[in-house]
């Protein structure tokens, strides 16, 4: 893969990610937003691959696209009757929102580009890091790993508890 091809593909995915994210935000239709978000996640996963984090990219696809996005779609369908014409999502604070959108982005970009202190390592990550993630997970990050699994369990139980229809109350 030549350098040019690499660059082109990078820009392609970058464009997909950014444009779909913009579409997520700016479209009035919730369904469109949800589907557009799918592209954003895919694009982000592709960028992860560019960043030598193939395992994270796969996890991204599995968790986000396979889990979260489906969950969101379920949420949309639970709360909005799809048959209704009122699928559109209203907006508020549009003026300060846009102001802050450009403000924040501009400010961050300005910061990034005027910062000359980035000192990239001589040995950036190369190739697959799945094996290293395995090591790290089972050695240095074993405690966060266990804690995050317990958190996930608790979150799932809590979500089920919160979201169930309370029949006894009726």
């Amino acid at each position: 893969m030549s350098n040019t091809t690499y660059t082109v593909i990078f820009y392609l995915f970058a464009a997909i990610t950014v444009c779909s994210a913009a579409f997520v935000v700016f479209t009035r239709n919730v369904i469109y937003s949800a589907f557009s978000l799918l592209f954003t996640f895919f694009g982000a996963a592709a960028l992860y691959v560019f960043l030598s984090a193939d395992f994270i990219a796969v996890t991204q696809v599995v968790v986000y696209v396979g889990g979260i996005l489906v969950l969101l779609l379920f949420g949309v369908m639970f709360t909005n009757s799809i048959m209704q014409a009122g699928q559109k999502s209203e907006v508020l604070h549009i003026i300060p929102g846009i102001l802050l959108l450009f403000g924040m982005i501009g400010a961050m970009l300005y910061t990034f580009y005027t910062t000359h202190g980035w000192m990239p390592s001589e040995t950036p990550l190369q190739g697959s890091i799945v094996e290293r993630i395995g090591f790290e997970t089972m050695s240095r990050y074993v405690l966060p790993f266990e804690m995050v699994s317990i958190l996930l369990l608790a979150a799932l139980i809590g979500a089920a508890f919160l979201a169930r229809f309370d029949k006894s109350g009726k």
Partner: protein
Amino acid sequence: MEQLTTIGLNHYLTISAFLLGFGLFAVMTRKNAIVVLMGVELILNAANINFLAFSKYNGGMEGVMFALFVIVIAAAEAAIALAIVINIYKIFKSVDVSSIDTLKE
């Protein structure tokens, strides 16, 4: 041109900045709670990109591991948030965040 063709840290940071901006915009302006959640996901993705980018150009595994945990926590967050949204819907018969202003009192 050199800057544009040679993909570096700044490119990823730029993308993450855009994602973050859009995410914040969604959180700020959209009335639909689901879309607000989508904005939150965008913000998390922006953070992830940053983590991984820094991790790659730093050569360490910390960013990678953090991104992994972020994904897990994002999943948990999405589940809980959805549950909350559904509860809100049950109580207010709406997912319009702007109509929920009991915090005022």
